[in-house]
Structures are given as C-alpha cells and as structure tokens.
C-alpha cells in the first residue's frame, strides 16, 4: 500500500516535471488567420525568422475577427490578418499600433464542375454571385466573421444580392474555418469563396474547381499590427517589433515570395518601404 502510494507520487512528480520542462526560449504569440496557417506559409517562413533572430513564433490560427479579439484581450503580441476595415478600427480604438502592409493573396470563387449557375470562366465576382443567387444554386458561406467572410459579404453587396434571403435554402452558413467550409462545399457540390492558398493546399476537392478568378476586387491584403503595449504592458514589444520589421524587410518579403504550392506562388509581398 505504502509502496503504491509512493509509486503514484513518483508518477505525479515525473509528469509535472515533464510538463514544466518546456524549453525556455524567446517567443511571441501571433494571432493570425487559418488561411495563412493552413496554406503552409508560416511553416515555410518562420524557421527562417527563428534562425536569424532566435525568436520562436507561436501562431494561433483563427478567423480574422477572432484573431483581432484575441489581440484586443491582450492574448497575442502581434496580429497578422486580412480585413483592412476591421484592422483600421482595431488601431483607431487603440488596441493596436504600427500597422504595416505585408503581402496580398487573392480570393477565388470555387464551384462544381456541373456549374449550375453557368459562371465558369468569368472575371467578375459580383456578376457571378448574382447568377448564383438567381439560379438558387447552393453556396457555402464561412459565416464566421473571418476576413474571407467579410469579403464575400462585400461582393454580395456589390452584386445587389442580400444572401440573408437565401438562408435555409441555397445560402448555407457553416460558421467554420476555410477548410471545413471547403469540405462542406465539396460534399454538396456548392459554390464557395476561398483564398487561393487554402484552396491550393486543400486535398479533398471532389468535383470542385476554380470558376472565377482575377477580379481586382478579389485581391486580399494582409497586414501586421503590434498589440498596443500601452494597453497591455506584458506585450513582448521588442520581439514583436523584430518580427514585424523582419517580415516587411527584404529577407521576410523574399521568404513570402519564395513559398510555392505545386509551382504556384500563393502570396505576393507588397510591403511599402
């Protein structure tokens, strides 16, 4: 019995130690979007950053809206997102400082090969959405206040369509990330707006393919913002700034440009110097 108790105590201690043995390294938390994380971009560029600065970047991938919320609460040091209007609000409200342009990628409209709304090959996203609504063809929306969701709602507005009217019939809000939304669209042969990076990395395509691309409105700019240290004093300001400086400088920009999936470049650096 006493032996048992000692054994349990030893196991307890060992586990506690193993848990505490987290390597003590310099690190920052970056709240970012599923599109950047799932496309594999961070996996490609962060090792280079860690190598040149010794700072590990811990990426929490969420929708843009959630990522900004995490920043608002002070749970991240840097946010790295793509919804310009929301970003500007974040800075104006005093939650973030020093916003910088980093890169852009583009959105693509995805749809089934059968193309019930007859939109394939077009370049006008608003016209395509209008046709989809008119045909009452199934459309999957992220519905999660992400940057992609915000862009989709902008395009519907441009098309003069209120997707809320199609709720419960052709317009399906999944309330999920890009990947799950693509999985849903794939299983029900629906149209869906996606960022090109996630689409290229996505494996479960089924009947889906790109139907509309190249509309200038579908360019999707990313920015980095430091969480305001005046509001959240624990923010790792120096390390956070080091990351922001690096990603907009030549080395970071080259790393972004160098990331390719299937030979295709996903993100286009556009930091202004």
């Amino acid at each position, binding site marked *: 019995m006493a032996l048992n108790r000692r054994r349990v105590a030893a196991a307890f201690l060992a586990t506690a130690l193993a848990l505490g043995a987290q390597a003590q390294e310099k690190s920052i938390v970056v709240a970012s979007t599923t599109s950047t994380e799932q496309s594999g971009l961070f996996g490609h560029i962060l090792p280079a950053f860690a190598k040149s600065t010794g700072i590990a970047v811990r990426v929490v991938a969420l929708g843009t809206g959630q990522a900004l919320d995490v920043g608002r609460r*002070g749970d991240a040091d840097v946010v790295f997102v793509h919804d310009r209007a929301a970003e500007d609000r974040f800075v104006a409200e005093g939650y973030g400082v020093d916003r910088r342009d980093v890169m852009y990628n583009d959105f693509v409209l995805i749809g089934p090969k059968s193309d019930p709304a007859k939109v394939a090959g077009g370049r006008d996203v608003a016209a395509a959405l209008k046709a989809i609504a008119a045909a009452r063809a199934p459309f999957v929306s992220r519905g999660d206040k992400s940057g992609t969701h915000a862009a989709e709602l902008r395009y519907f507005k441009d098309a003069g369509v209120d997707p809320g009217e199609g709720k419960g019939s052709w317009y399906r809000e999944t309330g999920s990330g890009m990947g799950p939304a693509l999985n849903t669209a794939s299983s029900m042969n629906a149209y869906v707006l996606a960022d090109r990076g996630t689409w290229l990395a996505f494996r479960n395509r089924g009947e889906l393919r790109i139907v509309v691309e190249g509309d200038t409105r579908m360019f999707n700019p990313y920015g980095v913002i430091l969480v305001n240290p005046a509001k959240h004093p624990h923010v790792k300001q120096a390390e956070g700034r080091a990351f922001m400086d690096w990603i907009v400088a030549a080395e970071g920009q080259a790393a972004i440009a160098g990331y390719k999936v299937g030979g295709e470049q996903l993100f286009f650096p556009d930091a202004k110097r």
Partner: protein
Amino acid sequence: MSTFGAVFGEAFRLIGALDLALLDIVWLSLRVSLSAVLISTVVALPFGAALAVTRFPGRDALVVTVNALLGLPAVVVGLAIYLLLSRAGPLGTFGILFTPAAMVVAQAVLIFPLIAALARQAVADAWREYAEQMRSLGAGPVASSLALLHDLRFSLVTIVLAAFGRAIAEVGAVMIVGGNIDGVTRVMTTAIALETSKGDLPLALGLGIVLLGIVLLLNVGAHLLKERAQRHHA
C-alpha cells in the same frame, strides 16, 4: 465505399511512416492528459467520497449539480477557462493561455465532474456495506472516505481510465485554450481537426487510429494490472 477503403489504406501507410513531429504530438497529448487526470483525480476522488459519506445541508443539491455537470460541453469549459486565463481575465497575470498548462487546466476541469460523480456513486454503494463497521471502529468521514477509496481502487481505475479517455479525445476545449500552436500546443485531437479542415482526410484518420491505439494500449495495461490485483484480493 471505395474512398473509405482508400482513406484507410493511406492512413495505415502514414502510421507506418511515423515521423518525429507526430511522435512529439503524441507525447504532448499524453503529457497533457495524464497531468490533467492526475490533478483532477487527486481532488475529485476525495471530493466524491466525501459527498457519499457525509451528510450536510445542500449535499443533495451538490450531488445533482456534479451529475449535471457531466453533460457540460467541452467547448463551454474551454471558453470559460479561456476567459479566466486570458490576459483580460482574472487569472491573466499567470500568462499561461496558449500553453500546455492551460490545456491541462481545461482538461482537468472538464473531467472533474466525471470522476467525482462516478466515484461518489461507487463509494455510496459500498458505504451501505461499510457504514456501521466504520462507525463502530470510530472512523470519522476522512478515515472512512480514504479507506473506501482504497478498497474500491479497482473500480476507480476504470473511472480514471474513462476520464483519461474523455480528456485525450477532447478537442473543443484544448483548441480554444491551447490555440493549436504547431510544436507547442498541438495535440492529437487538434491536429486531427486541422488535417480534416485541410481536407487531408487520410492523415486525419491515421492520427485518429494512432490516438485510438494509445488509448487501447493504456486500457489493456490497466486491465491486466487490475485483473492480477483483483485475483490476489479475491
């Protein structure tokens, strides 16, 4: 369904090619869930036993509450822990959000009602047999609770294993409080969720099979130990 078979085939191929990153994820899953189970068990077993052995005003309400908490969705637990541990929350100064420690806390809280409720039930059942003898010996609630927990150790192992299963299989809470950070807080379940959302169903399923294998191994081990000990004690 041919795709189902194909996905399974691919899953097993991936398991065969076990790589280091995957081992790290497995190890982190075990570390986090074992810690959570140990911490929760140390508190929940005596708590459940005390609920069975003592009588005090409000005890029945407490029992009902603990039983009801069994139905608490993991995501709600995750959200509550997130709000507590967030920098803007009451425990924010510890700065453990998005670390394994936060995941341990979330899982420990999540399985507490499970261990406490089942332990209470087991102890209450046994207590009917033991109560008079314990009181005759002059044992108070503390000594009685500990003695019963010790006597019920074989059934408690099953309860603790169930709790471990719930902890290691849970995804919603650890996703929220851990953030699924690659190499830091990515565990089996969040990795599965990630691969699923990337549409990489074979890898997701492969990870799922590995997870199942680990839980199975642990259960087999515990079962064998239990059988041996039980035979010894008749």
